[in-house]
């Protein structure tokens, strides 16, 4: 500390935290700013057409929230049902995978984890296109069903593609490996002595799992659940490619109001509603995510 050269440098030194300013401003300008604009549009304070009169109005909001049989609200409810179904299904399928990696795979666990996660990093769009081939009319599954004499030629089940089933299956497929990750991390870091203690005290394998391992892994399960829940809430690509118009999700409604129909004011109501839903989900579930990043200040 008494080194003279060092003291001189310290006097002109700017706080290192200032380095966060450019990236933070970048996100504020390109993400938060536009969300504010979306809010202005949703209350009719702006219009996409130059010269159109604008004035504060809650009519679009009123229509969306209270209007009788509002198609967009119905779309939202359908969307949330699919999202919940997919989230629960994904967590149920990912848990045994995470358990296998943490407790059974032993030394090869990181190699297996890489094997399972690698497809997740290939193009999402291309994997959905592959599912179109698999589920499509005269596609792989329908061919197999015909040749196993489960269905007759030309009578492939209608639920196979352009259905809620196909949309949910593709989303499930997409998220399973990713959801296994937080569950794996929790199981991996679990104190093995606790499990040994449970068995020493006479618990059998299943009791030890149900009374000790599972309760301790709940934070990972919740994190995995949110990992699917949040992105799926705004999903619109899978319904476009493997769903029919009846299976379009809330994201598709937003997309169409900004693309083909072009009613930005109404579209903004839906977009802001989606943001609000995600914010609520984050408030409810956020504590299970990236807690370690927020706690660094304590050290």
């Amino acid at each position, binding site marked *: 500390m008494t*080194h003279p050269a060092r003291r001189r*440098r310290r006097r002109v030194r700017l*706080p290192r*935290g*200032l*380095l966060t300013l450019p*990236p933070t401003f*970048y*996100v504020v300008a390109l*993400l938060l*700013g*536009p*969300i504010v*604009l*979306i809010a202005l*549009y949703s209350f009719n304070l702006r219009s996409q057409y130059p010269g159109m009169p604008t004035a504060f109005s809650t009519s679009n909001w009123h229509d969306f929230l209270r209007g009788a049989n509002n198609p967009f609200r119905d779309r939202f409810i359908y969307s949330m049902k699919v999202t919940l179904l997919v989230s629960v299904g994904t967590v149920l*399928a990912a848990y045994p*995978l995470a358990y296998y990696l943490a407790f*059974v*795979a032993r030394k090869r666990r*990181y*190699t297996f984890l890489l*094997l*399972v*996660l690698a*497809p997740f990093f*290939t*193009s*999402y*769009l*291309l994997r959905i*296109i*592959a599912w179109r*081939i698999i589920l*499509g009319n*005269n596609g*792989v599954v329908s*061919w197999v069903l015909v040749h196993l004499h489960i269905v007759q030629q030309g009578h492939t089940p209608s639920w196979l593609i352009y259905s809620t089933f196909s949309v949910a299956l593709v989303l499930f*497929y997409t998220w*399973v*490996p990713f959801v296994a*990750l937080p569950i794996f*991390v929790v199981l991996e870091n679990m104190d093995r002595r606790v499990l040994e203690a449970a068995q020493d005290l006479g618990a*059998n*394998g299943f009791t030890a799992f149900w009374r000790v391992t599972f309760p301790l892994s709940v934070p990972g399960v919740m994190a995995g659940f949110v990992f699917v829940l*949040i992105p799926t809430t705004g999903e*619109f*690509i899978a319904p476009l*490619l493997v769903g029919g118009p009846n299976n379009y999700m809330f*994201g598709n409604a937003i997309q169409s109001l*900004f693309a083909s129909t072009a009613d930005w004011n109404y579209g*903004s109501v839906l*977009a802001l509603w*989606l*943001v609000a839903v*995600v914010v609520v989900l984050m408030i409810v579930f956020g504590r299970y995510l*990236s807690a370690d*990043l927020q706690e*660094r*200040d304590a050290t």
Partner: protein
Amino acid sequence: MTGAGRIARVLLHSYFFLLVLFLYLPLVVLVIFAFNNSAVPTLPLSGFTTHWFHQAFSNTDLTGSARRSIELAILDGLLATALGVLAAAGLAARRLFLRGVITTILLLPLVVPYIVLAVGLVILLHQLNITTSLTAVLAGHIVISLPYSVLVILPRLQTLDASINEAARDLGASEIWAFVLVTLPLLAPALVSSFLIAFTISFDEFAIASFLAPGGSPTFPVFVYTGARTPLLQPEVIAVGSIVVIASLVLVIGAELVRRWWERRIEGRKGDTAPAFAVGA
């Protein structure tokens, strides 16, 4: 081990095996149909051909969109990583005013649906009287890649031994030079991971590009989306798609193996390490 435990173990082994099959099934199907001598992707297969690859590579709309997306992805990788280094270096400071707010803002793009970001950018450009362009697509891709860069770089920065940096400073290096000459090379594995993750995000991104890429210059995902719904183009899309899928698998697995070797060399650490994208592991 008890009998029940052994049965559970066998069940878990089989479950893992079936799940891996399920996860790789679409990728295998894509590759098989890329070589199928038929204009429609249906079974039974009608013979082997490389015709679709030739046709795809002579389709300048397709190759042009691929080149466009590769350029975008490289720029996104570089710029998101640069901003990520700034953010991580700032967040690693011992004291930081409004740390919670800054962290929340930087991680926000992880939870805001891409469709909202896309329409938000459409409105922003309209408000500023700017026409949509590939630059706008790039700007959007940097927003969504930045949090991943921060999440990859920051933990690595925090585990670096502060005393190495101090030593460089004691030997007369200024803070900036100590960072450039000592910290950055030690961060290199994380920087490469960050670049690759951002590259992948940009190369695959559809929502923002579908709104902001000008009609005459679609990105690869936008072209693929149109192509998949156009019977005449579908075989070419499947052919090129199979190349892209195989290339990304090789890249992801290769990069991970190199990173493990590299970090082990830097740290002299033994044993297996968690994958870089297993953020928080």
